[in-house]
């Protein structure tokens, strides 16, 4: 592509007078992307997350061995080598392959939690903020009850009640992580609720439901996305924690937290068994944190438009 066409495309995206809905949206996205990409650390974070997605998608190709079936006879607790990049564990399974497959479980947890917790928080927060009065009091007291318990303890209680397993771990984490989102959404709603543009929509005759759904929620979403992204690291760690305690993923599932738990026994002599999944958790958590910071700069409604 020549320089001229790139430049004309940029001009089209940044145009002050977009000619179509699509151009207006793309232009807005492009401005956010420019702000995001100006932050080098955020790009690194994005790269890490993209790598995680690629690894998870291509796990079958990337992993040289089975993640669950090991060679108990010949390959127990081998040190890292050309054949086994990260060594093998006590059941003779290739740790590299397990980490590659484990990325799927990490994504599974993170995405499911986000899909369950963020909308609940958004709904509770915006409704409480917009309705005010009794609705607000009741919804926020419920939120406070959830916030009063430490996250991991509450998740433990839920898993203990529901039975161990990765699905229940996801559910437990989701149930414990929506309250902060509700708080954020409510705070954001309170700041826009009395603005003239919301009043203007009220004067159009819009129903409260429509106002919350179409006019208030879009304003809360960006701060929520930022917060959820920043929380991803915490979610991964909670999931790993549950896995470590034996309440999350059950063997032989290659979940990173559970892998650390089983490697704990050999940590002095065969350090790589626990170190490799630990490093994976560290890197992915870091990636989500950097991405979240970058998104905050790019999407922050306050720093943005003018």
């Amino acid at each position, binding site marked *: 592509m020549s320089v001229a066409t790139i430049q004309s495309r940029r001009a089209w995206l940044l145009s002050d007078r*977009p000619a179509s809905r699509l151009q207006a949206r793309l232009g807005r996205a492009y401005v956010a992307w420019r702000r995001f990409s100006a932050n080098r650390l955020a790009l690194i974070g994005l790269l890490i997350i993209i790598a995680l997605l690629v690894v998870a998608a291509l796990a079958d190709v990337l992993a040289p061995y089975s993640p669950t079936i090991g060679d108990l006879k010949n390959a127990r607790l081998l040190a890292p080598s050309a054949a086994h990049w990260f060594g093998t564990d006590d059941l003779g399974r290739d740790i590299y392959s397990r980490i590659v497959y484990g990325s799927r479980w990490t994504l599974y947890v993170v995405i499911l939690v986000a899909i369950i917790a963020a909308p609940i928080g958004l709904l509770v927060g915006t409704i409480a903020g917009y309705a005010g009065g009794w609705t607000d009091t009741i919804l926020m007291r419920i939120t406070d009850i959830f916030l009063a318990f430490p996250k991991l303890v509450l998740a433990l209680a839920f898993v203990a009640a529901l039975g161990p397993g990765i699905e229940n771990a996801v559910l437990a984490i989701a149930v414990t992580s929506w309250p902060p989102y509700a708080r954020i959404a409510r705070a954001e709603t309170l700041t826009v609720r009395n603005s003239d543009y919301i009043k*203007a929509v009220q004067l159009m*005759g819009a129903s409260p439901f429509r106002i919350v759904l179409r006019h208030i929620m879009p304003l809360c979403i960006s701060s929520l996305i930022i917060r959820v992204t920043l929380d991803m690291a915490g979610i991964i760690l909670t999931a790993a924690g549950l896995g470590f305690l034996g309440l999350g993923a059950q063997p032989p599932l290659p979940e990173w937290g559970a892998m650390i738990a089983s490697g704990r026994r050999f940590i002095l002599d065969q350090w790589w068994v626990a170190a490799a999944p630990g490093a994976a958790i560290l890197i992915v958590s870091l990636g989500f944190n950097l991405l979240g910071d970058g998104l905050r700069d790019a999407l922050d409604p306050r720093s943005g*438009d003018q």
Partner: protein
Amino acid sequence: MTVSITVEGLEVVFDRFRALKGVSLELREGESYGLVGESGSGKSTLLRAITGLAPASSGTITVNGKTLGKTRDKAFYREVQMVFQDPYGSLHPRQTVDRLLQEPLAIHGIAEGEKRIERALDEVGLGKGFRFRYAHQLSGGQRQRVAIARALILEPSILLLDEPTSALDASVQAEVLNLLEEVRRRRKLTFLMVSHDLAIITHMCERLMVMQNGEAVETLTASQLIGHRVSEDYTRNLLRASEGFVRV
């Protein structure tokens, strides 16, 4: 002559503060009526009480023969629309002009949105080039034009104007005032306009009410005010102040 809005003994109380202390008002169809006063006079509260944005604690409001209760139905909003003071605050920051104008049509289930939006933009002198812009891509005057287009798109018969030009530069103010006069003439609208500026009110309105501390001071015609035929000292003070600084 038919009556458009009647307000009788209207009181509005916010947390014990009486913002309006029994104000009455009669607006004839097709007339332009001004409310003048300083901050705290209750002039904006009166507009908001009519739209339902401020709660009336007593008194009655009748619009086109229908006495209003606590809530307003959709039909009310097709009769009465409002333009806000601050053009920077009255447009949703994440919506394009197109989306802003679509919203009232969608709420009222009006078809042929495309045509109406184009016509509305034309009417306020903006044209198609502005349709897909966001509020931050518009100047103050352009924003106020969009706000006027939004108010007109439901084809109301009454337009409430809350200091529609006080946040604008003088030259832009003139353009917006001209636009308002033009749409009023074309659509035979009834205006109820709030301003702190006597010159704007006498320019735009035939009759006016001077307000102070939530009460009506006096009701005048524009020509009475121009001829200084006023009976209250407060109005005289306002008149003097509007003539600019005089060294004593």
